[in-house]
């Protein structure tokens, strides 16, 4: 069975994922440049052992993918900071105040106090949404990288 087209397809998918991390104006050029090399590697006469060629093709694409992922993870550091700041400054204090106001730890007698409790609760909910969005942005690329690396190793085995 000729596994060439399958390998090229897998490698192309990895390159497509990798190019998403580049600016839009640069994506097509990168994709074109890298995919040109895929079939060249697959038919490279310098790689004497034929069974090694598909592995080299996948390695070529996977290395691009790994590099852009690691750069993405570095930039995710600032997102982690934002997530921590948002949680500490916004969500936690506001949630505590809202819980105190509504559960009766402090006796609330007038409606002004209740309405300010409601404002704080809305603020807490908004902060929670921001924190959730940041958490999603932080953890999503890592999950994707793990899945793809799993796919790469499966392809290399087969």
């Amino acid at each position, binding site marked *: 069975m000729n596994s060439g087209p399958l390998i090229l397809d897998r490698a192309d998918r990895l390159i497509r994922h990798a190019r998403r991390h580049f600016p839009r104006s640069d994506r097509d050029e990168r994709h074109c*440049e890298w995919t*040109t*090399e895929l079939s060249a590697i697959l038919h490279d006469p310098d790689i004497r052992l034929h069974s090694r060629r598909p592995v080299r093709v996948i*390695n070529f*694409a996977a*290395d691009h993918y*790994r590099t852009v992922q690691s750069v993405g993870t570095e930039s995710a550091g600032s997102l982690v900071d934002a997530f921590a700041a948002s949680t500490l400054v916004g969500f936690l204090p506001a949630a505590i105040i809202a819980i105190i106001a509504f559960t009766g730890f402090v006796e609330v007698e007038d409606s002004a106090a209740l309405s300010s409790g409601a404002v704080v609760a809305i603020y807490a909910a908004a902060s929670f949404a921001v924190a959730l969005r940041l958490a999603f942005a932080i953890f999503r690329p890592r999950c994707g990288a793990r899945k793809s690396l799993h796919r790469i190793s499966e392809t290399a085995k087969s």
Partner: protein
Amino acid sequence: MRVKLTNALERVLRVFLEDPSADRYGYDLMKAAKLPSGTLYPMLARLQGEGLATSAWEPARADAGGRPPRRFYRLTGEGVRVARLELAQAALDSANSTSGRRPTTSRPVPGRAR
């Protein structure tokens, strides 16, 4: 201009300097410098960004056998100058560190004949 000369960059510059007028494509450089794609291409982009390398797309050829055009890289004049300078400096530093001597400067010694 100075560039931070890493081991990988040193290898790439040596490959370019073997024939500075030759156009090299990515996979060719990968094989010659024995570097993975994820290291080489960002480095080429950096060299281009600093004006030390330039790239051009291969013109369409009839004998390419349907292969899409490649992107060729070569060092600019400034790139060749900087690469030679950096490699010479690295060789000097390496020689000094293996002989255990501190780098010497060409400062004139007072009282010595010229």
